[in-house]
């Protein structure tokens, strides 16, 4: 392997590792907090859609306006993420019961049964025996968007160096490494308290949504993808500060059930 081929392989591997980690983070988040089955269906559907797009368009895939895709996906992720984060903050502050979603789920499931329909697309956050539309959609969009970015990387780097095959192999290696790592961390993640994980998911969805929406709108983050390393803890710390603020309010008006401060996510 020549020096330029090595550089191509390493560049594509690293770039695709970043994209795969971003997709994995989203899938792990919705899989752990919502439904693994639905999240994995979303992954499968995303991979299938990606395969169809790449097979149909081939090298022309690079002409898809990634900016428009980022704006729509980023905007939706941000709206979803802020909904999650708001609920998680209210729960952590004691202003919303920790397990009220189970009652909501039971009510919605009963309504669905009485209507003679399943509950796909239910916004319940409890595990569901039917397909969880939320987990499916988030995983699908995450895999499709990041997959398209991997395809862009492979095609642009590979075409430049006249070695698309090597670029594709490097990308495949990156995805395999990230997936293996994801399977390894899945079990430890399952032991994290439910509301803490939902809090983290809200932070992650809001962070990725913020990042993609701004990029799609034409903004350039200082440091590129590395800015996520500041954005994620920044939004997390801000959310924790909001919990402390709300807890102070809850204590002032005597709201029962507010968890002690040391149990905050």
């Amino acid at each position, binding site marked *: 392997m020549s020096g330029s081929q090595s550089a191509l392989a390493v560049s594509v591997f690293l770039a695709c590792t970043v994209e795969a980690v971003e997709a994995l983070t989203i899938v792990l988040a919705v899989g752990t907090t919502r439904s693994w089955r639905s999240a994995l269906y979303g992954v499968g559907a995303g991979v299938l859609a990606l395969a169809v797009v790449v097979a149909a368009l081939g090298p022309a895939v690079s002409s898809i306006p990634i900016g428009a895709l980022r704006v729509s996906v980023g905007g939706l992720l941000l*709206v979803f993420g802020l909904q999650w984060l708001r609920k998680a903050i209210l729960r952590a502050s004691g202003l919303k019961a920790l397990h009220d979603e189970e009652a909501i789920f039971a009510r919605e499931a009963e309504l669905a049964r009485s209507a003679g329909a399943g509950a796909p697309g239910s916004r319940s956050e409890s595990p569901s025996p039917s397909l969880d539309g939320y987990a499916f959609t988030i995983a699908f969009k995450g895999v499709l968007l990041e997959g398209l970015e991997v395809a862009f990387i492979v095609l642009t780097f590979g075409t430049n160096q006249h070695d698309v095959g090597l670029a594709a192999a490097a990308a495949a290696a990156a995805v395999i490494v990230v997936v293996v790592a994801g399977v390894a961390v899945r079990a430890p993640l399952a032991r994290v308290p439910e509301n803490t994980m939902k809090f983290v998911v809200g932070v992650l969805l809001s962070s990725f949504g913020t990042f993609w929406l701004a990029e799609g709108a034409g903004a350039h983050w*200082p440091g590129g993808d590395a800015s996520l390393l500041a954005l994620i803890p920044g939004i997390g710390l801000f959310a924790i500060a909001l919990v402390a603020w709300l807890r102070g309010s809850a204590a002032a008006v005597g709201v029962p059930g507010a968890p002690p401060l040391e149990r905050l996510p």
Partner: protein
Amino acid sequence: MKRALLAIWDFIVGDDWVTAAGVVVAGAATAALQSAGVVAWWLIPVAVALLLTRSLARHRGS
């Protein structure tokens, strides 16, 4: 049809339409500023902070 549209609205927007609208406005403002040559990567994080605080303050007030 109406129920389906309401379900889509509820799925995407939820119970706080102002936050969703704020996200759209922040994205549009970022695009406008960028196209005018103004660096605007900071605008959406600021909007997120304001929208989240507003939404929680509304719940706190109720």
